């Protein structure tokens, strides 16, 4: 077998077998499963403890029924029951834990509702808000009937205004589509961001480990450093694809299983109902290109250090580039057509995330995406040629080396003159 493939599979299989890789993969699979089964999980916890028991002490005798009706509309999980007895008794019942809280209903001098809520703690603000809103509705109805508005007049008063957004550009995404795209792009951006950081780190560590354990000198006397570098990059790339394939297939099947319940939930809003094939294709392209860009960078940075402790320091500037790209992309989610975003999408170190954001969110001409990809590929090629030369010298360099001056030294080592 060609030595390129021997190194590739050696890297791949050895990394695949490491405990940390298996644990991260399993943990992420669990998270994916949890996310896609969110509705079921919430149901399990809500089976018994979900209902909140609230006692209502209605002094007026006429507010309880309309109040209960309103509460039911707003939140099905709040269970109201009338309480017969004194306020003291009711408070005792709360203290004993039979009720979550009590609502005292009364009328003020204008014949409008007046209420007090008592509970052991008032930390649960969402329930209080629900109760408050319900009572507000009751009050509005009462007040309206006092000034003799008809139901039809009342409805008119509360009717929402009609206000529509329309994009004039042909094929522009509708508001709904934009929302969907945003969710999908957001998730894919995260995947690109994390993978690039994680796997680029892995490569730098791998190279530095071989250097610091001094096995490098044997390796480069058997196989050319350039071949080694690319075998390693492709090997780890294969690893990342394996991991992604596991996540995606687990996510996809789990998602299919829970399709019905999820479509109604937040996932539907965020565009997971039907995923456009184009977006996925671009995601894969930009994922792979982004990986190669940063992996090459990481490999030659890793070749410059001689101790593993120095790796982080060396690749920090690179990590910052990734973070910057991600930040800009996050900003761009809200304003994808800003000229700032357009410009940065052509800067190769940001292209994988920002150009992807643009193709995912906007309808940009295909040549723009292709130019971005072209610049990216050209940068990767230049970086690979330059990186390979640095790598070749860098792996022979030992000693105090954690500055960028070493790039020059490494290049000098490979020079003939």
């Amino acid at each position, binding site marked *: *077998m060609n*030595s390129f493939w*021997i*190194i590739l599979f*050696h890297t791949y299989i*050895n990394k695949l077998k490491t405990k940390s890789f298996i644990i991260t993969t399993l943990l992420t699979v669990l998270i994916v499963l949890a996310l896609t089964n969110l509705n079921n999980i919430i149901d399990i916890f809500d089976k018994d403890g979900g209902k909140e028991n609230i006692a209502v002490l209605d002094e007026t005798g006429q507010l309880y029924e309309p109040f209960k009706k309103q509460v039911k509309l707003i939140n099905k999980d709040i269970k109201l029951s009338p309480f017969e007895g004194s306020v003291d008794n009711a408070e005792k019942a709360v203290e004993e834990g039979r009720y979550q809280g009590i609502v005292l209903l009364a009328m003020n001098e204008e014949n409008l509702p007046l209420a007090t809520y008592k509970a052991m703690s008032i930390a649960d603000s969402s329930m209080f808000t629900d109760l408050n809103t319900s009572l507000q509705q009751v009050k509005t109805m009462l007040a309206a009937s006092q000034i003799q508005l008809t139901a039809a007049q009342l409805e008119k008063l509360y009717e929402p205004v009609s206000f529509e957004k329309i994009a004039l550009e042909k094929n522009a995404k509708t508001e709904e589509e934009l929302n969907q795209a945003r969710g999908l792009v957001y998730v894919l951006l995260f995947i690109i961001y994390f993978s690039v950081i994680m796997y680029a780190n892995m490569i730098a560590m791998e190279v530095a*480990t*071989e250097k610091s*354990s*001094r*096995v*490098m*000198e*044997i*390796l*480069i*006397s*058997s*196989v*050319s450093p350039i*071949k080694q570098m690319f075998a390693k990059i492709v090997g780890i790339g294969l690893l990342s694809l394996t991991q992604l394939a596991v996540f995606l297939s687990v996510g996809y099947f789990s998602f299919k299983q829970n399709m019905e319940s999820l479509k109604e939930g937040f996932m539907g809003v965020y565009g997971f109902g039907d995923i456009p094939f184009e977006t996925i294709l671009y995601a894969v392209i930009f994922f792979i290109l982004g990986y190669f860009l940063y992996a090459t960078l990481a490999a030659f940075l890793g070749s410059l250090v001689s101790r593993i402790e120095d790796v982080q320091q060396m690749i920090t500037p690179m990590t910052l580039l990734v973070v910057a790209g991600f930040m800009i992309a996050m900003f761009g989610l809200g304003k994808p057509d800003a000229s700032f975003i357009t410009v940065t999408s052509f800067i190769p170190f940001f292209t994988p995330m920002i150009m992807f954001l643009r193709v995912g969110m906007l309808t940009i001409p295909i040549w723009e995406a292709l130019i971005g990809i072209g610049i990216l590929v050209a940068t990767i090629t230049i970086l690979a040629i330059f990186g390979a030369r640095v790598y070749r010298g860098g792996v*022979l360099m*030992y000693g105090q080396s954690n500055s960028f001056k070493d790039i020059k030294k490494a290049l*000098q*080592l*490979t*020079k*003939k*003159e």
Partner: protein
Amino acid sequence: MVLKLEHVTKKFGDFTAVDDLSLEIPDKEMFGFLGANGAGKTTTFRMILGLLDASGGKITWDGKPIDYSTSHLVGYLPEERGLYPKLKVRDQIVYLARLRGMQKAKALTELKLWLDRFKIPEYENKKVEELSKGNQQKIQFIAAVVHKPKLLILDEPFSGLDPVNVEMLKEAVLSLKENGATIVFSSHRMEHVEEMCEHLCILQKGSPVVHGSLKEIKRSFGKKNLVIHADFSLDSLKSYPGVVKSKTTMEGIHLQIEGEYIAEKILKEIVNQGFIRKFSLEEPSLNDIFIEKVGDSYE
């Protein structure tokens, strides 16, 4: 399969690491490289292996430069020892052997033979980091020779080993030579080179100061060592004409003299002065030659 270095020079910026080095290493011979730290031994090896490009000159083996197409014929033990600490001995050797173009099954049989030979068969499935330094070095040696190289380059193969292991490794190196490998090795230890090499080269600051076969080097050096143990004071001999160097010891005196004829004169001079316990004329050791050529700064 002669390894030839012709006017090889290597410069790092303004610094000249190897300066106009010309050597010829005959096939199936053992060649010793001597030199102080920083003399350019490792740089020379790296150039021979093609890891570094020479700034000038030519290196050929069997008329062709050494590159990755011949890597399965070449074995290399670097000065800085290193293996994958987390990998098992077996996986390690198989991986490195495969990179040198060996089949997996063959590498495994070869590995077993070597482990038995070094009396450490139980380490096959241990991780390298669990082994002692000496044993790691044996594994490293196996990694360099497992694919039966025709050209073996050993950078300080015996450093850091106890005498028993040095003997074991020496025997292994000699048996490789008998099997037809050309071996180039460097050492700080003169006695190893003296004992094992037919040809040698002493490097100083990148240029060869002595170069040739061991016998010739000794012969052409001319000077001899004279050891005299006697009951009377020999201090007067220190300034005797023809004595280059002298060192008083507990039992007598060690002299370095310009030639055999001086010994004859000295013997005549002292024979009547009293009882002479020992009078011995010795070949110069490589150590003497080294110190003479490279200077006393070296220890």
